[in-house]
């Protein structure tokens, strides 16, 4: 059995990027019943197109129906699930027992995956969902590698674990700080990320603040690349990347990094240090927060927390590719970040190695030569050394 690489998609563009860069499956939310209310979620028409596109590549599509619903939220659920089934959606990620049972009844052609919002941490917890007919359980991010090794032989339930991306600081689904401090419902798509705010700490009327900053519950992002080989050996069913709010460039580089490492593993049964370094380089292109291995290596202290709001990571993304002329070897780039004539850049294509090149002659739409590209969305014609396409990203050399 090969483990699935599961990528997030905030919209159709990102879904297509995830698939062409090597995801085995994608997940996203519709306009209804989904967390991440601010992600540009899919319309029903988008979902139909997403299924057609993914299935044409032999990939799977999961739709999140993962709100913790209030009684009034169920209106339209049955029709919605039937429609998703008719479009060929492969699975539903849900957190509510009654949503799962409703789905099993009215749209039994789809799988029902229990969301991490249910915080399943043990084989006994998995048994609960197995008895109810769940098709997969997404484990809590708090499960360590050692615990996973104990769990796996005790169950035949397909298991999904997170490997990359933002982490809820608290148990997912068990946090309502946002509800009570901002009136935005964390479990119905409105989380204000109040955990990432800064707090004075007190004990017995004594202020405990450190000189180097206030307490924050905010978590660093997870990066489980160093545990990837172990997770693949355990034959978990799916490795999930978090980030429905992330950019297409983020999705491309993260998916490509893990795809590369997974392919290396499946080629020979292990991943070399050199291969890990290469995969890590791809992941680092996309980082927008510091990362750590999450709970995979066990409990942690300061190294898992973000105490400074200014730990920004240098943006490497320079431009999209809009068009390519095979005869002239020129590409039309859409500027996303500052670069200059003479800068060294790198071409990231869905397949193959990255290709470094120097940004030489750059022409704007009127044919004028441009020295500095600093207008977002400006279109520039640039000579590139290899064939590129609309899924290609241009980034700067890694520092």
């Amino acid at each position, binding site marked *: 059995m090969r483990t699935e690489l599961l990528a997030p998609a905030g919209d159709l563009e990102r879904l297509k990027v995830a698939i062409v860069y090597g995801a085995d499956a994608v997940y996203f939310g519709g306009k209804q019943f989904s967390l991440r209310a601010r992600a540009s979620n899919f319309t029903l028409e988008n979902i139909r197109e997403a299924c057609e596109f993914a299935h044409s590549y032999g990939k799977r599509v999961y739709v999140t129906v993962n709100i*913790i*619903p*209030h*009684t009034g939220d169920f209106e339209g659920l049955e029709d919605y699930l039937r429609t998703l089934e008719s479009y060929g959606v492969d699975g539903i990620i849900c*957190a*509510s*027992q*009654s949503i799962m*049972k409703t789905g099993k009844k009215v749209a039994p052609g789809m799988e029902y995956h229990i969301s991490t*919002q*249910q*915080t*399943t*941490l*043990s*084989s*006994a*917890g998995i*048994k*609960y*969902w197995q008895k*109810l007919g769940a098709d997969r359980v997404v484990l*809590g991010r*708090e*499960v*360590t590698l050692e*615990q996973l090794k*104990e769990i796996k032989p005790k169950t035949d339930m397909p298991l999904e674990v997170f490997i990359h991306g933002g982490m809820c*600081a*608290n*148990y997912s*689904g*068990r*946090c*309502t*700080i946002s*509800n*009570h*401090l901002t*009136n*935005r*419902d964390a*479990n119905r798509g*409105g989380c204000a990320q109040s*955990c990432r705010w*800064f*707090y*004075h*700490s*007190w*004990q017995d009327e004594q202020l*405990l603040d450190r000189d180097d900053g206030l*307490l924050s*519950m905010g978590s660093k992002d997870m990066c489980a690349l160093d545990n990837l080989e172990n997770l693949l050996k355990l034959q978990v069913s799916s490795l999930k990347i978090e980030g429905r709010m992330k950019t297409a460039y983020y999705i491309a580089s993260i998916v490509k990094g893990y795809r590369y490492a997974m392919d290396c593993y499946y080629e020979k049964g292990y991943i070399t240090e050199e291969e890990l370094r290469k995969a890590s380089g791809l992941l680092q292109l996309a980082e927008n927060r510091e990362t750590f291995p999450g709970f995979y290596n066990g*409990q*942690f*202290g*300061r190294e898992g*927390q973000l*105490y400074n709001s200014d730990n920004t990571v240098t943006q490497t993304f320079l431009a999209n590719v809009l068009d390519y002329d095979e005869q002239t070897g020129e590409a039309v780039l859409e500027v996303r970040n500052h670069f200059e004539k003479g800068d060294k850049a790198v071409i990231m294509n869905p397949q193959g190695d990255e290709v470094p090149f120097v940004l030489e002659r750059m022409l704007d739409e009127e044919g004028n030569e441009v020295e500095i590209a600093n207008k977002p969305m400006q279109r520039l014609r640039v000579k590139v050394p290899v064939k590129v396409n609309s899924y290609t990203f241009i980034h700067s050399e890694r520092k």
Partner: protein
Amino acid sequence: MKKLFVSVNSLDTVKKLDRNLVEGVIVNSQGFSSGLSAHSIEKITELAHHSNFKVIVRLDCLYSEGLIKDVRVYLRYLEEADVYGVLCTDLAVKVLVEEEKLSLKVIYAPETLLTNCYDVEEMRNEGFDHCVISKDIPLSDVYDILNRVQNYCWLRIHGPILLSYSARHYVSSYLERNCHNELFELQESTRNDRLAMIEKEAGSWLYGACLESFGEIRNLMSSPVDALVIDNIYLSDDYTLRCLELYKSVLSGKLTAEQGIDLLRAFDLNINYSSLSEIRKTVLDKEKK
């Protein structure tokens, strides 16, 4: 009179409880509960055998694979101790109780997850003896659930509102010292009110204002709720006894609801309150309208 369950820190407090008002007590275990007080199985056994109160043990942590074996053994002890039931957050507890064929009542209290009548009905169908409805939904939704799933639900009417539960040790990590089994307060940097945080080996619990239901207690007594819960977590037993006294006075008509909360405020000036009827509809509800 509806059943009323109340949390106690000291087992000696049980002797001071009014049998006419209180049906049972909620106590913390050693190692498997969120609160700061903890009681050995011997003490819990003694309480269950001699107090004439139903004894409920709080098992409100989420249990990793490594702890499941210990929880299983502990549940057997609780059965032998004639404990009435367990208040649990982790569905795994239900599986263990079934596998061990125990007669312990399983009261599912996931804090955030039971926010609609359909999921509550599902829990009843799956054999949970009772469920504690989420404290994060407005009172109108609470009554809707109580009316649709009658004489089954438990409702928390008083006590600090749990805002979050994490496996992380927030204060220990921040201060770089072991802060387990200690009570702290966090104050968001732009606000005045403070939030209590308990840190234990099993993680960190963050609490907001203290929920109170003086204005609603009489309506709740005539509603189809199965039991009401006063769960004061880290607050003192003296405070809990004062709460009970004041709720009793409001129920008997000796005090108005306003007088009840005013007197409780006077008992401890540092506690901020949020009324059960003040739990607001969240933004998504408003957007729908």
